[in-house]
């Protein structure tokens, strides 16, 4: 049993940390603005008639993915995260893709055996 007694621990903050954080804060604000612009862009793009629905879907998902990348990369610090986390997430991404793609492929109309 550890005899670690509970004492008040003060946070050591040095100038270096504060300088770093100010730089990060600017980044967060820029990303925030980008996300807001992206949202407006999404709505605007959805009102344009590109000809086929598929293109609208592709555009909307592309913009959403871009916004998602910004949130994940900068707000969630994924851009500078450790290898272990990347490993967990890459497996997840692979299985997520598998679930989506394989299920949709199985149930696509041209893949279902028609019984006359």
């Amino acid at each position, binding site marked *: 049993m550890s005899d670690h007694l509970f004492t008040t*621990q003060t946070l050591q903050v040095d100038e270096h940390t504060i300088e770093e*954080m100010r730089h990060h*804060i600017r980044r*967060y604000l820029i990303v925030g603005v980008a996300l807001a612009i992206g949202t407006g862009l999404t709505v605007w793009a959805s009102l344009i008639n590109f000809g086929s629905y598929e293109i609208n879907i592709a555009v909307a998902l592309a913009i959403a993915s871009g916004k998602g990348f910004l949130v*994940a990369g900068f707000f969630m610090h994924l851009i500078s995260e450790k290898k272990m986390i990347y490993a967990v997430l890459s497996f997840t991404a692979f299985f997520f893709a598998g679930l989506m793609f394989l299920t949709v492929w199985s149930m696509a109309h041209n893949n279902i055996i028609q019984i006359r």
Partner: protein
Amino acid sequence: MEIPYAVKPRPDTGLYNAKIGIWLFLASEVMLFGALFCSYILLRVNAPEGTWPHHWLNIWMGMTNTIVLIFSSVTVVLGWASLKMGEFGRYKVCQGITLLCALVFLSIKSFEYHDKFIHYQVNLKDGRVFDGHLQKAESTPDKFVFKGRYIDKPEELYNPPLERAEEPPVTIAKSDIKVDPVTKQPMMENYGPWHNTYLAIYFTLTGLHALHVIAGCIVIFAIWGPLARVWEQDPERYINRVEVSGLFWHFVDLVWIFLFPVLYLL
């Protein structure tokens, strides 16, 4: 007995326990929402031509909610950054704004849900179909007052025009409504999850998302309010908790970033 690496990161992985824990949990949440998105795709692809609804949701409310959540994501990460710089007061303000944004989001969402529950599709005995919002205050058990319009073609139900003129109230007597031969009830159904699969998946996706918003709210509030004294005793542990709850909040925002175009725009 102390659990190692609860606060200080483990040298070879560079991570503290809760950070791995939350990312693992978020990975499982990706699979959860992924399965629901997969269901959405399949339900939509397999729907007969022309029967998948568009523009049944108010785009401006959805867009407002998106901006509100993005804003709250910014304040959450600013709150964490303030703590890293030792500025507790600023953290309190930022996180307070986050919580307010969450409440705004939930309020708008409740209003949207309510709107759907008072939106009826009425099948009349003379064969016409009426689509509109029930005005409860002016209705009686025998005469319903709606604000809406008569539908000429079935396609109009699934693709209502974006711009609609102000609709005058219409009174429909209960006796004019067709009765369903099987259930013996008048054929007027509101736009709940039972009405069609689009609404079903809409309510499920946004409902589950809203539950996550509420859960995130509770956790952030608990750390911000009652548990704030941990900041005095063990600042690094407190910062870790704020970071971990922030990661969950960003994920909730991330899911909405995909939900909004998929449900509201496409």
